[in-house]
């Protein structure tokens, strides 16, 4: 009888004395996680419910309007966001990935300047986004005289997400075991050949996941754009990088700040679009990670 029963683990033996307290603790922990889950569900249900009356084609076919909130759309915001994200991807991703390669593969950690770069990046990752807005306003828009254009917005957001790209790309590169590098070097490849032909291909899934998450951060960002003149209701789609612009989160913000109830509905509908884009990007990132992540 005793032989047939499954062997008890140390945990089960130990928790025998006070099962109630143990259970309560476990339930409390689980409840904390459940609160986050329930909150997220409530938020999504709420905005879909609120925005439902406006979730139709007029939302993305029409331009925003102050006078006619019941038919106003968000087209200029969608196009503005697409422009900003496209340019941010072109600027922040290559720079961030190259910087990550430098820090992981080349940088000598005993040199003070390399340690400075590392400390600097971890600090920048936590600088409030509104401060990046000040950087964009003071340096890029005014001092470099780029004005309140798509270019200014894209550079500002690129600098904002750069630390995130670097940190996640570094983790992906670090996950490639040294034996791969040593094997390549032993076969006579140079260091850059090793990185380009062995390390980078092996870390692409991780880098892609981090890049998507960084870009989705850029899509949801509103604070820096407030400083960059994107706050007004722009009624036309941007025509180039030197065009003035608005982005989706900023349009949502300007809808929220208006008193009419129709604008609140419009804001909720626009939020549904924004969340749908972000959820899609998040799912792709999570899928990529689960599907292609190698265990060495």
């Amino acid at each position, binding site marked *: 009888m005793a032989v047939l029963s499954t062997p008890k683990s140390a*945990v089960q033996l*130990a*928790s025998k*004395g006070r099962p109630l307290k143990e259970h309560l603790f476990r339930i409390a*922990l*689980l409840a*904390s*996680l459940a609160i*986050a889950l329930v909150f*997220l569900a409530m938020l999504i249900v709420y*905005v879909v419910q*609120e925005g439902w009356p406006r979730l139709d084609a007029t939302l993305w076919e029409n331009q925003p309007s102050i006078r006619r909130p019941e038919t106003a759309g968000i087209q200029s915001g969608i196009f503005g966001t697409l422009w900003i994200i496209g340019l941010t991807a072109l600027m922040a991703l*290559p720079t961030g990935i*190259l*910087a990550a390669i*430098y*820090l992981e593969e*080349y940088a000598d950690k005993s040199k003070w300047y390399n340690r400075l*770069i590392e*400390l*600097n990046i*971890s*600090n*920048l990752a*936590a*600088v*409030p986004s*509104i*401060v*990046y*807005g*000040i*950087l964009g306003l*003071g*340096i890029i828009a*005014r001092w470099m005289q780029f004005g309140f254009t798509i270019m200014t917005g894209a550079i500002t957001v690129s*600098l904002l997400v*750069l*630390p995130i790209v670097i940190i996640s790309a570094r983790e992906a590169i670090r996950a490639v075991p040294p034996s791969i590098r040593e094997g390549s070097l032993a076969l006579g490849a*140079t260091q*850059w050949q090793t990185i380009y032909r062995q390390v980078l291909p092996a870390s692409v899934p991780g880098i892609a996941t981090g890049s998507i*998450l960084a870009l*989705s*951060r850029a*899509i*949801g960002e*509103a*604070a820096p754009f407030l*400083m960059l003149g994107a*706050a007004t209701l722009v009624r036309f789609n941007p025509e180039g990088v030197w065009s003035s612009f608005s982005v989706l*989160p900023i349009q*949502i913000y300007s809808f*929220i700040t208006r008193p009419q109830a129709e604008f609140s509905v419009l804001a*909720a509908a626009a*939020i549904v679009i*924004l969340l749908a884009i*972000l*959820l899609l990007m*998040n799912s792709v990132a*999570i899928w990529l990670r689960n599907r292609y992540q190698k265990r060495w």
Partner: protein
Amino acid sequence: MSAQHLKTASGASRSLARSRPRYGEVLVKAVLMLAALVSVATTVGIVFALLEPTIEFFGEVSLGEFFGSTTWGPLFNPPAFGVWPIIVATLEITLIAIVVAVPLGLAAAIYLSEYATPRVRKIFKPVLEVLAGVPTVVFGFFALTFVTPLLRDVFPFLELEAKNGLGAGLLVGVMIIPIVASLSEDSMAAVPNGLREGSYALGASKMLTSVRVVVPAAFSGIVAAIILAISRAAGETMIVAIAGGFKSVFTLYPGDEMSTMAAFIAQAGSGDASVGSIAYKTIFAVGSLLFIMTFAMNYVSARMVQKYREVYD
């Protein structure tokens, strides 16, 4: 075979070091380093953007007035520059956020690291990631149109204003839960199993092991996570701008409308303060203060991780 190779290698009387510098490799390294230096340039840019207007600001407004009075209204006529109302509002909202996020985030981290089966982790980790990815304007909208009205209905005696510090603070708290949870979980996962097994062997339960062994062993990482979360909360803009309001009257009661430092920057920056005006310079002065505060916290957090990290092998 290997002996033969060795012989030819030594027989060729060439050193194994490369015979000529590989210029391509040097170039690559230079380009990569340049990319890494962009981040340093960013910091320098931020400091420069802040420095000049801040110095000009303090040429017109004395430090004594800035830190010595409690009336804030740089956009009013006549303007007032006592910064304490927005500092106090920032601290209040940050405190509320921390009260929400630390217990929930820490509990979530303990559960994910110590209790959850791989399958449960696979469900909950993405939930936290999605929560971390929700744009702050969305939280702001939710705070203003759902949470605050709900609080006003359920607790009418609190006399909450339509925009208030409590609703904003609660949502800032939810926003930073994923930061506390994921960073704390990372440092708990780094605690070696030997410590847990040792604790079980001494007769400790799972709860005792989690609370008395794993959490203390991961303490520096947890503190770093909390400091980072505080700095995020203090710098959060959109939630407080939407749900906290822009009224900057000195108040300690979180039910009142209040403007934080970040919200003030957003308000003044999105308005049309003309370049060179005192209102324009105030943006940068408050920005400097916010930057210094968050930078100091980030630095402490980074040092905590570096210095007090227990290294297990």
